[in-house]
C-alpha cells in the first residue's frame, strides 16, 4: 500500500504549494482543505457515485479483456478471419465515441450497457494489439514441443501461448486499466447516468468547486490504484522472467 499513499501525499503537497504560490482564486481551484471539507460533507454522495463508476469501469474492462484475448487468439491463428474482421475492429476503434454515442445509447440504454460499451471501445484495443504481439512471439521450439507431445490447439494455447504472452498482455492491460475510469466517466457525460463523471459535471455547473475537486481527486486515486494493482498482479504472474 506504500505506492498509492506516497502518490496522494505528493499530489496534495504540490496542490497546496501551487494554490498558495500563485494565489489561485478558490472558484478556479480551491485549496486541498476545501476539497477535504467537501469530501467529508458529501462523502456518501461521492461514495455512491464512485460505486457506479467503478462498477462500470470494472465490468467494461472485464468484457474488453475477454473480447481482446479471444479476438487476438483468433487473429493469430487464422489469416482469413484477420483479413475479414480486423478492419471492422480498427474502424470501430477510430470512430469518435462522441459521434457514435447516440447509437450506443439507442442500443444499450442509459445504464450500465452504454458505459460498458464505451469502456470496451476505448480500452480493448491496446489489450488486443499487445496480446496479438504476445501470442505470435511464442518460442517456435515450445510450439514444436507441444505438437510432438500430441497437444491440441486449446492445450497449446493455455499452457504455452498464453503464459508466454502474459508480459505483453499486461502491458496492454495497464494502459487500458488506467483509461477505464476515464472512459466510464465519459460514458456518464454522454448518457447522463449516475457516477463520478456526472457528479463532477453537476458540481461544476453549480460552482461547487470543493466537491468538484474532491471528486476529481477520488477518480485520480482510483485510476492510480487500478494501475498499481495491475502491476502487482503482473509481478506475481510473470515472476519467472527475472
Amino acid at each position, binding site marked *: 500500500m506504500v505506492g498509492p499513499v506516497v502518490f496522494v501525499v505528493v499530489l496534495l503537497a504540490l496542490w497546496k504549494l501551487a494554490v498558495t504560490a500563485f494565489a489561485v482564486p478558490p472558484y478556479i481551484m480551491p485549496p486541498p482543505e476545501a476539497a477535504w471539507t467537501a469530501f467529508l460533507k458529501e462523502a456518501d454522495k461521492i461514495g455512491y457515485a464512485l460505486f457506479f463508476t467503478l462498477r462500470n469501469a470494472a465490468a467494461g474492462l472485464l468484457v474488453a479483456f475477454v473480447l481482446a484475448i479471444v479476438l487476438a487468439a483468433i487473429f493469430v491463428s487464422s489469416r482469413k478471419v484477420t483479413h475479414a474482421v480486423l478492419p471492422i475492429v480498427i474502424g470501430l476503434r477510430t470512430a469518435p465515441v462522441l459521434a457514435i454515442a447516440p447509437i450506443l445509447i439507442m442500443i444499450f440504454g442509459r445504464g450500465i450497457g452504454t458505459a460498458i460499451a464505451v469502456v470496451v471501445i476505448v480500452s480493448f484495443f491496446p489489450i488486443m494489439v499487445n496480446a496479438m504481439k504476445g501470442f505470435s512471439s511464442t*518460442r517456435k*521450439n*515450445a510450439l*514444436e*514441443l*507441444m*505438437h*510432438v*507431445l*500430441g*497437444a491440441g490447439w486449446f*492445450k497449446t494455447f493455455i*499452457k*504455452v501461448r498464453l*503464459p508466454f504472452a502474459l508480459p505483453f498482455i499486461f502491458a496492454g492491460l495497464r494502459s487500458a486499466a488506467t483509461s477505464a475510469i476515464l472512459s466510464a466517466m465519459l460514458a456518464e457525460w454522454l448518457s447522463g447516468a449516475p457516477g463520478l463523471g456526472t457528479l463532477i459535471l453537476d458540481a461544476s455547473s453549480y460552482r461547487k468547486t470543493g466537491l468538484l475537486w474532491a471528486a476529481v481527486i477520488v477518480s485520480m486515486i482510483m485510476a492510480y490504484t487500478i494501475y498499481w494493482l495491475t502491476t502487482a498482479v503482473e509481478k506475481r504472474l*510473470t*515472476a*519467472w*522472467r527475472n
Partner: protein
Amino acid sequence: MTDITIDHVTKNFAIDGRSVTAIDDISLKFPSGSFSALIGPSGCGKSTLLRLVADILAPSAGKITIGGTPPDEARRRHEIGFVFQDASLLPWRSVMDNIALPLEIAGGPIGDGPRPETLIRLVGLSGFENAKPAQLSGGMQQRVSIARALVLRPKILLLDEPFGALDEITRQRMNMELLRIWQETGTTAILVTHTIGEAVFMADQVHVLAAHPGRLVTTIDVDLPRPRALAMLQTPAFNHLENAVRAALFGDELKAEPEPAHG
C-alpha cells in the same frame, strides 16, 4: 515392435521463392529397440530428418512409418519423445512441472510409465524438483528435457544434438546415463550428433550424411559389445570404427596432400 522406416524421403523447402532440397531421396531403417546415430556436416538435413520422423514436418515425397503407422498417428498416441538442441523448457514451470507437462497433455501416465519423481532421480536432479529452469546450468536443463521426453515411456526417442552445448566431460557422463536409460526402457533411439566419437560410442549403427543436397553416404555398423564402457574409447576396434566414419565424412579430402605452406 516400433521400428522406423524412411522410404525414399525427399524434403524441399521454399526459400525466397526457390526450392531448396534439404533431403534428397533418403531411405533408412531403424530396427525396434536399436540405437542409431545420424552424423554429418551442418546443413546436411539431420534436424530436418528428425523433424520429419516426429511429424513436425511432412515429407515432400516418400513415406515414413513408425511401427507400421504414419508418424502423425504415433505422435497423437504420445509415442514420440523429442529432445531438442536447446532444452526448450517452459521458464515459468519448475523442474517437476516441466517433466510432468507431457502427462498433463496425455491425460495421465501411459501404461506403467515412470513417475516424474523417479525420472528426476534417474537423471540425477534430486533436490532440484522446485527449481526454475533459469536456476539450472545448461547440462541440468538438458537432463530435465531428457526426463520430460521419457515420462510417457515413448516408443521412439529422438535426440537432436542434445549435449552439443556441454563440455566434453559432462557430455561423456550424460551419454553414459543416456545409454543406461535407453537400455532400461527399450525405446528405439535416434541421436543426431556431429561428433564422430560420440556417434560410435553410442550407436549400433552410424548413418553418415552429406550436404547440398542432404543425402545418405553410408551406414557403418558398430559391433562393440554392450553395455558400452569408457574404456572402449581407447581400443583399436573403437579407433578403427572412428576412422571408418571419418573416411565416410571426408571422402577424398583425407587422401589429398596438405597444401604447401606459403613462404
